[in-house]
């Protein structure tokens, strides 16, 4: 049986890298005693598959992971057991049985929502954000493995808006390409002047017949 789990990664746990997170889950599973299947082969290990890697240092309230159970169980019972075994900073939020036919979480993911807390300069940033959404092209400098490239990120910005005094962004997060929120914030900083911020990932989404839908819910109700 496929089981999906949504969890939060906050506090000191935001400094856990993706590789270390996989190991933390494997140890959590062993501590929990849950009937998660081990891989075949010489070096058996628990197979857990994350929807998306979270950047080191960022907090999230919506990370998703899936695993295969050797026997059926209620999602509520699964949630209670894994919640007890998770280390500090990782918090289980909801569990859902995923039908065999549903795509992998990773494959279904299309976009991620980020909530940005900002100190001051809100008016200038709001103006800059509004301007970005009206542009056909937005150039940003992306540094990867020490090489900086100028790329057009406009197509990977789904939306930017304000909610409760916080800047909200929904950005592409898909196997074909993902956009890091820092790149957008750099562009805003160039226009509005540098500012301090703190980003939290607050949603993972897919698209179903053109409509935006929560990733775990989509896979859970897949027919």
């Amino acid at each position, binding site marked *: 049986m496929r089981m999906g789990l949504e969890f939060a990664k906050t*506090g*000191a*746990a935001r*400094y*856990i*890298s993706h*590789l*270390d997170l996989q*190991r*933390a889950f*494997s*140890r*959590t*599973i*062993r*501590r929990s005693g849950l009937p998660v299947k*081990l891989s075949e082969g*010489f*070096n*058996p*290990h*628990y197979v857990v598959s994350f929807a998306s890697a979270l950047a*080191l*240092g960022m907090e999230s309230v919506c990370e998703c992971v899936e695993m295969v159970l050797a026997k059926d169980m209620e999602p509520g019972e699964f949630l209670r057991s894994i919640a007890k*075994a998770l*280390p*500090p*900073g990782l918090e289980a939020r909801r569990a859902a049985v995923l039908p065999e036919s549903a795509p992998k979480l990773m494959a279904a993911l299309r976009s991620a929502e980020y909530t940005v807390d900002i100190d001051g300069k809100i008016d200038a940033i709001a103006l800059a954000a509004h301007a970005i959404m009206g542009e056909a092209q937005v150039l940003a400098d992306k540094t990867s493995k020490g090489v900086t490239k100028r790329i057009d990120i406009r197509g990977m910005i789904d939306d930017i808006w304000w909610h409760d005094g916080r800047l909200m962004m929904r950005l592409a997060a898909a196997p074909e390409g993902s956009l890091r929120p820092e790149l957008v914030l750099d562009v805003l900083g160039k226009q509005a002047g540098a500012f301090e911020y703190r980003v939290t990932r607050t949603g993972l989404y897919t698209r179903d017949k053109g409509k935006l839908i929560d990733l775990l819910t989509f896979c859970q109700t897949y027919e």
Partner: protein
Amino acid sequence: MIDTDKLEKILINVSKPARYTGGELGEIKKKVKADTTRFAFCFPDVYEVGMSHLGTSLLYHLVNTLDGVYAERCFAPWPDMEQALREAALPLYSLETKTPLSEFDMLGFSLSYEMSYTNVLMMLELGGIPLRAKERENSGPVVIAGGGCTYNSEPLAEFIDLFVIGEGEEVLPELIELYRKHQDTGFDRSAFLCAASGIEGIYVPSMYDVAYNDDGTIKSYQPKNGAPARVKKRVVRDFDASYYPTSPIVPYLGVVHDRVTVEVMRGCTRGCRFCQAGFIYRPVRERGADTLIRQAQEAIANTGHEEVSMCSLSTGDYSEVARLVCTLSDTFAGSGVSLAVPSLRLDSFEGEYAAKLREVRNTGLTFAPEAGTQRLRDVINKNITENDIFTAAREAFETGQNGVKLYFMMGLPGETMEDVLGIADIAARLRDIYYQVPKENRNGGFKLTVSVACFVPKPHTPFQWVAQDSMASLTEKQRRLKDALRPIKGVKYNWHDARLSMLEAVFARGDRRLSAVLESAYRSGCRFDSWMELFNFEKWQTAFETTGIDPDFYASRERKSEEILPWDVIDTGVSKAYLWSEKQRGEAALTTPDCRKGCMSCGMREAGLCG
């Protein structure tokens, strides 16, 4: 508590920030009250190394079982973090409560290798603590140190208030209790140190006056104010019943030894003459197999680790090794938990036991013949024959293994070029044996790793008097061996930097005059000296020159039997006379049997520590 907003800003820009956050599963949380005695375990290397250190983990959890005491952890910050802390004007702090080191009652440094000493100075300075013990006022922490290097702690004598000699689980609770009494009545550092020197296993270096002869050797070691003439090491008597943590901290970062460890045995009876651990950790004490099995089960349930390792100096000599390995492998069968047995002695490697191990996981074949010829192995009392190596290797090859690791030392006393080239002969023979195995049983090409360390003579061993081989000679031997190994296909050759081994030899057998060199090297930027990417030999050379100290005096000088050695003040229970007789037997290439087969009168029994 330090400014955590400032800390967050620097963490995002340093490598591996999880080194500096704490908050792992298993971390001890306590409420700090006005009368809480606060202890910080300080490990002078990065988090991943320190979190792999069994002794620190054991003592951290043990001290936290004491009422009114809270032990926390601190590791050496990597250079990027050191710089960030300095730029942000943040002091070095504990992981649990983010408290600056200067606010602790006691700091306990773990000294397991000489090349971590500059990091001790770095941690003291970053923690806001005066470097030299005599500069410390009544306020501020008592700086203590323990671990293998304290059996000659003289190079750090100026920086450390007191050393714990022997096993910390015996000494620390007594020391902390004494501290709490002094805390109640108004703390006076020198009165406390004086009282502490009365606890067996506590060495207070400031309570000894050292005088030197014209030739630089030690003239006398004079205890003051009632300090003992020699400090006797402490040992755990009932090892089976002694404390062992089964809910250790589970690091988020991948650490060096990322697994559950059970401590099978302390001490070793083999008596290899180069091996300091074999002498200072006597006598041999075993933990019962049933205790170990229970501890392993509890620790796996509490941590969720994927590997269990059995730790000791010579696990193959453990009297219940076969039952332990078989039971553990059955216990964890099908759970994805594997079993690792390090430090396997060649002559204890048996078929049935090896087969069982392979069922769980192939851990590879590792032997430590240490020397290239039988003659030299007899000199060092490493009682392994070439036949042992070849028989075990053939058996492993026939079951489909293709990789072997061999560990050797270079620069052993009495070594000739023939001994060095003997290493290449062993490699060539192993390759021949591999290709004698029928092709259908072989698993790929032959792979042999030959790792050769430079011999460092250590205190409290029969070789404590001998000169270390010169850097020029070691470099030449390394080159000759490299040439001899080159034609043998499938061999990977690793060797140690002779310059680093020379420094190790200086500090291993150094006296307290070396504190000037340490401080000078530290001030010029030496840090993490055992990390090759950060090791800077030129800075060390300058430190010797500016302080006028000759490293050869310590590394490459043959000592006379009557010389007063800087570590004579430490009494391990093994007599100097026994060590000298072992040195002489070594020179005559005479071996000494395992003392389980009959007492060799090393002195432990007479000291009341054995039998």
